[in-house]
């Protein structure tokens, strides 16, 4: 149905795609796999008319196409849901779905928007997705996961032949993923071609009929899931067996590490909480200790991190750093005492897009130093280069805008921003979200190394296996409360029990 041949794309000096092909057939779910920076997002932007190709041809149903804009490609029948939700939070659900093509009524000269019809059709669409939300609600008041589903509903509402989903599941929980997959299966049997980008290997095998792998902007191959078991898929993406070896290395490190010292906790929360954010809880964090925080979306994980870092104000209990009770009213105070926080929302709370990688990396250190003295450009470049090498950040040079990096590399740059301040306590909120297998392993390796050097780490993640592998202790959150605490060696089932079942705790 949609066929891309010999696609190349260059941005100035950088060749992003080189002779890539992709063949989507009607009635299949096709997984597009690759590490961060492999060129998946660029390929999708070419298919959807955001970028023109440098070389190569696109055909749809045998006819050559050259979409010049996203609208153009939508008219051709190619509909897309991007990685980050691209909707207007201040409009209602129905308005978002019909934005730009509102149903009209009345005569030619007097075409008012047909509100009731819009709401009706929206409700019908959402029902197809098994979503029970009020179409007149403002989108911004809904959780990110639901917003993502609304974005998919919007993509479906145009009569699409090809549906492209760029990491649609990274913010969904298991049941939401399952309902999405049910929808995808329905679409598949109705003859739609679905292109599906994800970092979750199990999802690839759960849904896809075919897999195309890209690496470093080149086409590696196209397989059916049966031809390509998971280890082979990872090897195809990474190019070597690094990922698995490195996973084993993490496990070995965890096993070899001595139990954390029992000195005064570096950070100690007592009855610490805030109205409508987190119910009061106790938590200790010692030097060299990794404490995992598990829980569903909205269970209060992020809220806890924000309270600890002074981004929101706590209204009960105490927070003590090295035994000293403190009250943070601004993150700057937390930073001064050696805290660091990589937020979950990389784009809105993390990167400063138009500034260079270098400026982004030195930002927190400079903020802690204050206005004076300024870190000289030569020193900035040296610092940035140090972390680019240390964390393997893929950037042409440290002066390029950070917005041009791929998601995983932006995440690493944010980690670099905090490592540059040499923190004592590192709070990571979903650091592995939306980044590929190999980068995840590198990041976890780095966390282990930091903990070995004495840093205490609060590791928040919705991927339970990650939390289990890396943590000395696991705090489980449910309904904005601490549901329980588990020691190292807990099983996934124990964590799941705490997450879901109050009675089982």
């Amino acid at each position, binding site marked *: 149905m949609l066929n891309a041949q010999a696609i190349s794309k*260059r941005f*100035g*000096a*950088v*060749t992003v795609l080189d002779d890539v092909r992709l063949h989507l057939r009607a009635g299949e779910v096709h997984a597009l796999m690759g590490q961060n920076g492999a060129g998946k997002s660029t390929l999708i932007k070419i298919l959807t008319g955001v970028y023109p190709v440098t070389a190569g041809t696109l055909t749809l149903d045998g006819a050559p196409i050259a979409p010049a804009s996203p609208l153009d490609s939508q008219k051709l029948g190619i509909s897309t849901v991007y990685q980050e939700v691209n909707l207007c939070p201040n409009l209602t659900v129905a308005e978002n779905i019909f934005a730009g093509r509102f149903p009209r009524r009345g005569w030619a000269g007097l075409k008012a928007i047909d509100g009731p019809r819009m709401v009706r059709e929206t409700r019908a669409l959402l029902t197809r997705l098994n979503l029970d939300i009020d179409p007149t609600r403002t989108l911004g008041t809904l959780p990110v996961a639901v917003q993502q589903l609304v974005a998919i509903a919007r993509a479906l509402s145009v009569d699409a032949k090809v549906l492209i989903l760029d990491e649609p599941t990274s913010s969904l929980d298991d049941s939401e993923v399952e309902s999405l997959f049910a929808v995808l299966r329905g679409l598949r049997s109705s003859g739609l071609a679905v292109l599906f980008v994800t970092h979750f290997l199990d999802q690839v095998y759960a849904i896809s009929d075919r897999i195309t792998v890209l690496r470093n902007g080149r086409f590696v191959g196209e397989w059916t899931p049966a031809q390509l078991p998971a280890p082979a898929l990872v090897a195809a993406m990474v190019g070597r067996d690094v990922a698995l070896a490195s996973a084993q290395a993490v496990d070995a490190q965890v096993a070899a590490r001595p139990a954390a010292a029992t000195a005064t906790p570096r950070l100690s929360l007592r009855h610490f909480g805030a109205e409508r954010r987190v119910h009061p809880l106790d938590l200790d964090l010692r030097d060299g200790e990794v404490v995992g925080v598990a829980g569903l979306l909205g269970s209060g994980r992020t809220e806890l991190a924000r309270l600890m*870092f002074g*981004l929101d104000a706590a209204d009960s209990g105490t927070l003590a750093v090295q035994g000293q009770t403190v009250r943070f009213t*601004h*993150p*700057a105070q*937390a*930073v*001064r005492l050696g805290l660091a*926080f990589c*937020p979950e929302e990389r784009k*809105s*709370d*993390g*990167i*400063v*897009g*138009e*500034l260079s990688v270098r*400026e982004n990396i*030195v*930002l*927190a250190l*400079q*903020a*802690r*130093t*204050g*206005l*004076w*003295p*300024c*870190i000289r450009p030569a020193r900035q470049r*040296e610092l940035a*280069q*140090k972390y680019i*090498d*240390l964390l393997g950040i893929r950037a*042409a040079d440290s002066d390029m805008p950070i917005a041009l990096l791929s998601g995983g590399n932006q995440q690493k740059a944010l980690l670099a*921003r905090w490592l540059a301040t040499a923190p004592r306590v590192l709070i990571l909120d979903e650091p592995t979200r939306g980044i590929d297998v190999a980068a995840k392993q590198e990041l976890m390796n780095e966390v282990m190394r930091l903990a070995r050097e004495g840093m205490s780490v609060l590791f928040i993640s919705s991927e339970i296996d990650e939390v289990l592998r890396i943590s000395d202790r696991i705090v489980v959150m449910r309904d904005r409360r601490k549901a329980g605490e588990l020691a190292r060696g807990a099983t996934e089932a124990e964590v799941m029990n705490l997450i879901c079942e109050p009675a089982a705790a």
Partner: protein
Amino acid sequence: MTTAHEMNASPPRPAPQLPPRDSRWVRAGRHPLVWPLVTLALILAVNASLNPGLWHLEWRDGHLYGSLVDIVNRAAPLAIVALGLTLVIATRGIDISVGAVVAISGAVAALMIGGDLKIVDGQAVHISHWPLSVALLAALVAAAACGAWNGLLVARAGLQPIIATLIMMLAGRGAAQLLTGGQIITIYYPPYFVIGNGFFLGVPVAALVALAVWLGMTLLLDRSALGLFIQAIGINPRAARVAGVRARTITICVYAFCGLCAGVAGLIVSSNVKSADGNNAGVLMELDAILAVTVGGTLLTGGRFTLAGTVIGALIIQTLTSTIYAIGVPPEINLVVKAVVVFAVMLLQSPEFRRQVRALAFRGAPR
């Protein structure tokens, strides 16, 4: 530290494939100051073709005289206001109260100086009500306080910058009119006139003040991390806060500094006309200042900014005004001509427009 070791241990990065290098001219065309400079040169060229005396400079009575000197001198207050405004705009804000603050500063100075004619030892001497330094300081403090108030409304109360400063634009103008009682207050104290009319080493003092403000700001931004913080706040205030940048404090200070700059400009303006006019001083100056910042290449969307561009922008606006007067455009179509020229300048500076022109020019040409 292990820095050196780690850097050595990392594998050598493959040399990136370099595309064919752009010619030197193409690369120069991308420098942010090129288009403002081209614009300034064009307007000066038009002026010179209609007014051959433009380039004439003369040393008379130990002073530098000439049309160019006049333009620079008159551009000085605008440049100072626009420099302060540049920082506000870089934080993704705007300050439309600068014109009113110009009037307040002039009014405060005029009231505190006043000037009485006294006969001392048989000679006529002008005496100020308050010492000159106190009067200047009070005017500047009043101006900075107006700016700080704007900053508080924006950073603390969360008002939209254009609304917060709109309030000050109205309240400030009202305050200036109250101070002057709706009259033009004439100042009788010659030492005060130096700021707006004097010469130092043959160069107008006003131009030197503007130069000092520019150099001082450049030095401050170069030696401190203020520029980085302002840009971070302008591009992504939430991320800046998470990174530990004191975004509110910096925003308030930036607005206060903008007010201070308007205060300095107000002193120059009132000193130049030897009076304070609460009704008309600084009227529409905020718009000229916004124009100067934009023409200079700083985007109103915040983030990246250029002080040098703003200075060039102020010179462009003043050269344009002077040109319109010099070539004898009838006063009633003055603003229309100015608008047309500004429109053309903005189009010339828009990369999108240039791209479209290029596409039009090359359409039909064989590929």
